[in-house]
């Protein structure tokens, strides 16, 4: 009987204390500046006490990512400002071009290139003109035409000589005594 009376008194006392503590805590929290409290907290010590692995084990990454609105995130990123801060030259200095090229599969790359589309943007006529192709074609065409003409001329000159030798034989003239051409021209073109 006595134990029962003591326990009910004890519960009443705890209830009163609890209400007092709540009232006091409420007053204290309302009164104290949070920054003052935070200033007293040693963040490093707090972080040292946190078991990061255990914390991460509790995080469901997939669920977290599902909640991230990527488009909204990208919209908030100032790409131009970001790019302005990138030093392209410094970036390129750090790139090992040879190593990069070794990793490029040229055949696969070329297979993906639509040559027709590329050529549509190329002024082939100007490129051909710059390369001097018309001059080369004209020169080679002229050379071929000249060679063909010379071939025909040689045949005609050959016939001249044959006819000349026949006439000399008929007229009993010594071919060696026949004048070859006007003296000035023969001397000019002599070997």
């Amino acid at each position, binding site marked *: 009987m006595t134990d029962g009376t003591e326990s009910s008194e004890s519960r009443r006392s705890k209830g009163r204390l609890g209400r007092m503590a709540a009232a006091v805590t409420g007053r204290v929290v309302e009164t104290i500046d949070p920054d003052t409290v935070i200033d007293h907290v040693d963040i490093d010590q707090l972080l040292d006490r946190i078991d990061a692995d255990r914390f991460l084990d509790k995080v469901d990454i997939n669920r977290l990512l599902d909640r991230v609105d990527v488009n909204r995130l990208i919209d908030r990123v100032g790409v131009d400002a970001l790019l302005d801060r990138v030093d392209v030259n410094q970036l390129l200095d750090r790139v090992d071009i040879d190593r990069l090229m070794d990793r490029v599969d040229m055949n696969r790359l070329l297979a993906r290139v639509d040559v027709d589309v590329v050529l549509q943007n190329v002024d082939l006529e100007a490129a051909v003109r710059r390369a001097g192709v018309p001059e080369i074609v004209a020169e080679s065409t002229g050379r071929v035409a000249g060679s063909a003409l*010379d071939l025909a001329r*040689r045949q005609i000159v050959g016939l001249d*000589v044959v006819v000349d030798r026949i006439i000399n034989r008929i007229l009993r003239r010594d071919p060696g005594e026949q*004048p*070859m051409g*006007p003296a*000035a021209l023969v001397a000019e073109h*002599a070997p």
Partner: protein
Amino acid sequence: MSHSDAWHAVPRLRVTGHYAGVVSRAASAALDVAIILGSFTAGLAGLDLLSRMVFGASLARDEAGVLSTVALALWAFLYVYLSMAIAGRTLGKGIVGLRVVAADGSTLSGRRALIRTLCLPLSALPAGAGFVGIIVQREHRALHDLLAGTAVVYDWGGRVAELPGPLSDFLARKAGAEYSSRPPADG
């Protein structure tokens, strides 16, 4: 002996400046006649078309053909004389590779070109007897060449006039003294 050695063993005889023979002369004359007649016919047809369009009268009404003959003779004279005076060769001679020069080899003057052109009919009129000189005369000069003091020689412009290789080889062996021989510059 390799193939290339055998190829270069037959140098072509050079004939630039030598008197042109009868075949060359005949070929160039045939080309000139074709050019004169072709250009005259085309020109006359064009003028006739123009005359009919502008004046309503055809040039083909020349029944006796006197005017056409005179016009053809005039056109032939102008073609031969002007070509000769300006370039020393007609178009036909240029294609075959011939040039008309003074008998001593100097450049043809306008006066000689005029005399040669005027004397050309003299070679043709007595049944072409004046042209026989091209065959039998030592310098292959026709009557009009002798009268004008001219000669016709091989001249291929910037290139060297040559004989075919096999014929050059034959001449070099049989009658080398008749033609000078020198390997081509390009080997």
